């Protein structure tokens, strides 16, 4: 695993505009960064990332199986009681899931360590599935990257197939897609999934979360009063379960993507549960619930809110003292603690690997860099190759 500087494609901003990639620069700071790329060996990809990703996903499903049948655990996961039964039902009927992203700390050797599972609303999908794919095609064509270079990235292919399967499962040939207003990044991610749906022959409709309505028959509707039968929502379950329309989530009859049972996975309580069920697993970091902290013998711990996004409210604790803290609006539902395992450094950068799954199939990686130890939303996205 190397970080290799490379010339940028001279016209890439123009190309980004053509393809509707609008959030490559955010707040004047680069987000998409093609001044360098990461190079992996096939062995690193297949043995250190792909296989552990598939394995961990199966372990996560084992956690879901356990949690949905245990009220005490559902409470620990801070899931509102009214959703316990709907979540169990969604799990029992195996409502199809679309995708997830596991975040790993990995430096090219030794086992990758799982930081968390973004199982409900992962972003950086477009950059991964399409934009870095295009980057490789073009850099190979220009002779700047070796002809034999490959990329761990079958995301788009798998997303198209999976969306087709989901449509078939629910016997539909159209699907609604939603995210919140005022965010180019989320809108871009959802648009990408709409593009993939179209490739699969599914008609796509978009609605903003804020514009969703409730019909007289208690179904959800879009801004054109059309009934939402299937909704892909890039909006966290833990928010939806606490908002005004929460009481209609089950009765609306909507097919949800991601399905309700994913609220068990996109939840930091997953980490101590994994550690309890698979203690000492090489790809896991020791993790503890707050009231089990006495079990921890690590001197350095990372404190993470049960619910949080983009590194917010995460702090690093050394011998009981906070040494680094990211601000944010999360934490009221409690915290979990994870053994400290710092991100590897390449130059001045801390590097995080996101490993994608489409349903239960490993489907590629994304590489993000941050100058801080805590990867936040100002981190940069770099392409990668396999050689």
């Amino acid at each position, binding site marked *: 695993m190397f970080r290799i500087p490379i010339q940028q494609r001279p016209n890439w901003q123009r190309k980004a505009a053509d393809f509707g990639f609008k959030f490559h620069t955010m707040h004047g700071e680069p987000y998409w960064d093609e001044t360098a790329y990461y190079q992996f060996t096939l062995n690193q990809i297949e043995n250190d990332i792909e296989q552990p990703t598939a394995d961990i996903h199966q372990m996560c499903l084992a956690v879901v199986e356990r949690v949905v049948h245990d009220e005490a655990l559902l409470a620990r996961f801070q899931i509102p009681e009214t959703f316990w039964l709907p979540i169990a039902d969604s799990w029992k009927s195996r409502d199809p899931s679309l995708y997830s992203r596991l975040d790993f700390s990995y430096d090219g050797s030794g086992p990758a360590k799982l930081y968390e599972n973004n199982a409900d609303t992962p972003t950086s999908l477009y950059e991964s599935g399409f934009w870095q794919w295009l980057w490789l095609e073009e850099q190979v064509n220009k002779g700047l990257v070796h002809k034999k270079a490959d990329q761990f990235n079958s995301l788009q292919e798998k997303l198209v197939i999976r969306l087709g399967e989901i449509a078939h499962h629910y016997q539909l040939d159209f699907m609604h897609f939603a995210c919140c207003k005022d965010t180019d990044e989320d809108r871009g991610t959802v648009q990408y999934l709409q593009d993939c749906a179209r490739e699969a022959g599914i008609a796509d409709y978009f609605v903003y979360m804020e514009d969703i309505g409730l019909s007289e028959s208690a179904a959800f509707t879009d801004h054109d009063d059309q009934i939402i039968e299937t909704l892909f929502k*890039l909006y966290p379950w833990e928010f939806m379960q606490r908002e005004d329309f929460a009481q209609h989530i089950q009765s609306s009859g909507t097919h949800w993507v991601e399905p309700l049972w994913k609220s068990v996975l996109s939840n930091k309580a997953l980490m101590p549960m994994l550690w309890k069920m698979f203690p000492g697993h090489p790809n896991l970091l020791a993790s503890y619930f707050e009231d089990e902290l006495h079990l921890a013998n690590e001197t350095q711990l990372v404190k993470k809110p049960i619910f949080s996004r983009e590194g917010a409210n995460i702090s690093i604790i050394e011998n009981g003292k906070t040494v680094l803290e990211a601000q944010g609006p999360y934490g009221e539902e409690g915290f979990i603690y994870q053994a400290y395992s710092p991100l590897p450094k390449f130059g001045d950068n801390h590097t995080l690997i996101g490993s994608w799954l489409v349903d239960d199939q490993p489907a590629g990686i994304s590489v993000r860099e941050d100058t801080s130890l805590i990867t936040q939303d100002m981190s940069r996205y770099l392409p990668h190759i396999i050689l």
Partner: protein
Amino acid sequence: MTQRKRSSNINLASMRKGFSVKPLALGIAAVMLSRCGEETEKATVYTSVDDCTNQNPGQEELCKTAYQDALDEAQRTGPKYASRQICEEEFGANQCNYTRTESGSFFMPFMAGYMLSNLLSPRGYNTQPMFTSYSPYSSYRHRWMGADGSDYGDYRRRNMNVSKKAFKSKPSVSKTMSRGGFGSSVRAKSSWGSSSRKSSGWGG
């Protein structure tokens, strides 16, 4: 192992986003150009009822109804803009019309034609609005464009092969009693701290 680990083929044309400024609202295309391997049928774009009647003698009534259906659909699902200037930048000078719908008032491009297939089929015809642009700034200049922004090729081309799966089923419509029951957490979290990035999303 020699198996490729990346997507083998991505259709770049379908990944392009044609609009220079994204419309406020965008429809969907009922009829899509056929993809390879799909069963196809012929469709024709007509620029007026007369155009349709001339090519389908004796079918004036059908041509008229299909035109009216397409016009209604254009109003419902065509690209919508908040200002005339933005609309004209995409579609050209004097190509946009002020319109009021239930969801607000907008500027929309004129329907430039309608695409008709199965005109004489006992199952009924398929019709959908087509737009085109006269603006030098637009990637739709002199091209047929569907309500969803799909590019149907050069506007001199009138006959095309479309997907046989033509009329997709659509969502049913119901009366909406209340709105705004989702999204409040975002408003609450957004108000946190001045350093939080407003444009950042709620994914992770």
